[in-house]
């Protein structure tokens, strides 16, 4: 099996896995980075969202072989201690119920706001519509994205 050298959260990680292994399972099963969640496995829910060179991607369908030298950021690497403006906004609004989808929601929001620091409500909904929250915390997610946008200025 090939050995992959992955740049994750600013550090090099080695993983010996088959080339079709989705990044999600490399993170979870091989590297112990468990903040990225499995929920659907077919890129429909966003729970597994991580950043690849700053872009939000679905790690459950991204083969490790296509990661190459790209910089991967997971929820563990978004900030050192949860001080990213998106994480702080999530706390201010008290978003979660079960919390399982929230790492993916936060990663989606963080990548979105980096590209679009002044989003309209409609743009927020379009960006966040890709992530499912079964507890129905969408109102608070929307509010938190707005607060994060304000605080990132």
């Amino acid at each position: 099996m090939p050995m992959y050298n992955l740049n994750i959260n600013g550090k090099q990680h080695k993983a010996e896995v088959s080339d079709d292994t989705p990044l999600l399972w490399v993170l979870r099963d091989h590297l112990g980075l468990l903040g990225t969640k499995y929920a659907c496995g077919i890129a429909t829910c966003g729970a597994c969202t991580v950043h690849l060179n700053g872009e939000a991607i679905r790690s459950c369908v991204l083969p490790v072989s296509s990661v190459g030298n790209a910089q991967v950021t997971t929820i563990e690497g978004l900030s050192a201690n949860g001080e990213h403006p998106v994480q702080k906004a999530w706390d201010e609004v008290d978003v979660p119920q079960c919390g399982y989808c929230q790492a993916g929601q936060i990663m989606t929001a963080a990548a979105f706001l980096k590209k679009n620091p002044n989003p309209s409500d409609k743009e927020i909904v379009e960006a966040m519509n890709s992530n499912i929250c079964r507890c129905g915390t969408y109102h608070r997610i929307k509010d938190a994205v707005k607060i994060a946008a304000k605080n990132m200025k």
Partner: protein
Amino acid sequence: MSTSKIASPNRRQFLKTTTLAGGGLFLSFDLFSKNSSSRMKVQSGEADLVHFNSYLSIDPDGTVTIFSPNPEVGQGIKTSFPMIIAEELDLDWKKIKVVQAPLDTKRFERQVAGGSRSTPHSWKRLREAGASARNLLLQAASAQWKVPMDQLSTSMGMIHHKATGKMEHYGAFAGAAAKLDLPKEIPLKDPSQFHTIGTWVKGVDNMEVFTGKTQYGLDIYKPGMKQAMIVRAPAFGLKLKSVNGEAAKSMPGIEEVVSFNNRVAIIGKSTWEIMKARKALNIEWQKDTDLESSEMHNKILSDMIGSGKMETRRAEGNIEQAFKDAVKTVESEFQCPFIPHNSMEPMNFYADVREDSAELVGPTQNPESARNAVARLLNLSQDKVNVVFTRMGGGFGRRLNSDFALEAAELSKLIKSPVKVTWSREDDMTGGIYRPACKYKFKAGLDANGNMIAFQLRAAGINSGNPSRENNFPVGAIDHVLVESSDYKSPITTGPWRAPITNFLAGAEQIFFDEVAEAAGKDPVALRLEWVAKAKAKPVGKVLYEPDRFKAVIDLVAEKSQWFKKKKGVYKGFSVYFAHSTYVAQVAEVVKVKGKPVVKKVYCAVDCGILVNQSGALNQIVGSVVDGMGAAMYGRLTFKEGSPNETNFDKYRMIRMGEIPDVEVHFVKNTIDPTGLGEPALPPVSGAIGNALYRATGIRYRDQPFIDYMNEGKAGAGQNM
């Protein structure tokens, strides 16, 4: 101040103390003791703390740790329970540490997340725990400072003596306090004095959740642990005939293929390797019972509510005569499909079964039930089985069952190894235990004044138990009533789904009563108020709801939504429901965007008694509205030859941010003991939305999912962008 009498002398022993290595003193409370004669085993050192159940510790430096006993499924219990203790103990919320207590059935009652019962069950116990600790600390301070106790006051974890200006934190008195006897009566605060209860408090685990540190069941990885997935019968009604796992076993990372109890397990080193190899399994299934389809269920349910034999659930007056006397009758049928729970974290469990003991770790809403089931399965005594419960990535009733824990235990025993069983999303959606499909036939008889003199409900379900709720409002206000039900036994497994039965029945009822109001020429709100008045003045049979509380939520939602005021282009629908001891009235507003109806807003008026945590309560109510709307609009699991057609989120539509309405919540303010909020706001929402959609489109949304009415071209679905 009200007082709480400690009736049983045993309960007075629930407070214990011990000395920690290093001089720390623990004041320990057995909050839920049902057997207080059992002594707390408090030993020195941090490592021993896990042996505790619910308790509260006060360090010499004044740090307070509260153990929260119930499983956290997203209902916010890990935050709201300690708030209640902190209130009576006058603690500074910001200085409290909250820790999850383990399963311990000797010391706790009802470590369950379900039925919206956690808060009502524990409200008084938690208050007494906090209040009695405060009382003992005051006694100790009084003795030490040699001042009368009634000259002392507490605030933010400190004791003050005003005359001398003395002030000291609780930690200074914890050791002395723990040696004192509890008083016979423990004064509890008057709700007007609450400083923590009723405020906005954030989740105690927020930052762990936001940084990915929270450990859910799927995040359990232990040394020596194997990974496994289990292939279950692809259709309800099939059983295992044979399995050839050679091809799968030869694939990388695969260690073993075993079969047990109609299942095939594939065991290996990593999830992806197992996911790939399971496709190479060669399994033959054979027919065990009939393989049912949704068309067959439709016919069965129609036959049942048509002329099928039913069991009488409630009867008042003379229903036959009343329908003869009626000048007008209204009759309608409503149907809902099976739906899966779809918690974001799929089912999973870790098990390590040894010769004479077993340890299980995972997400369960009912760890005691899981432990007992595993003990029975393995023929071990309950004290040899340890179930550690993790935070859950949602439950919605699915995790009240123990099938996933039993499977893991059975597999671990078979392969003689610790193992984590992971369900794929497809396993989770097709693996059974669904909200049952139900069908209802309502009939109302009206007199010449438009009064409903007769009300009949025929309720049918598939593995639903009793699909009616025969004591529901407005039963109690109607002179002639007949509620009947029947249940069809199917190989398709079912179980509680958030607000069992009422999650559809409520909406059906509320749409039917809208039809009754229309037939009677009455306003839907006015009609409910007539019934409430009747139930209060001249109740018919037993009435299990309080008419005044019903009236209060109806009035409140009518006022806040300006129900009686017409708004151009806004179509309104009303519902009101009482379930899980909580009263909820809702008004939905629908507007048309490019000719398509869009649910724009839902007003909620809620009477849940005293509000414990504003943030948590609002989150539950708004989430229930979203969840209830999602299920009503899109939820459907259909079957072909016993197999579910919808297997993942590409085929099963979940509500997303683009579809949510604004939600405005108002609480009835009172000082009644709190009731649950995990479920009650969900049942009425499909009724309010259905009634508003009717006004917008002229179509009665009687069957779920509502999207069918929209896709048929009668009206389109709009997005709330």
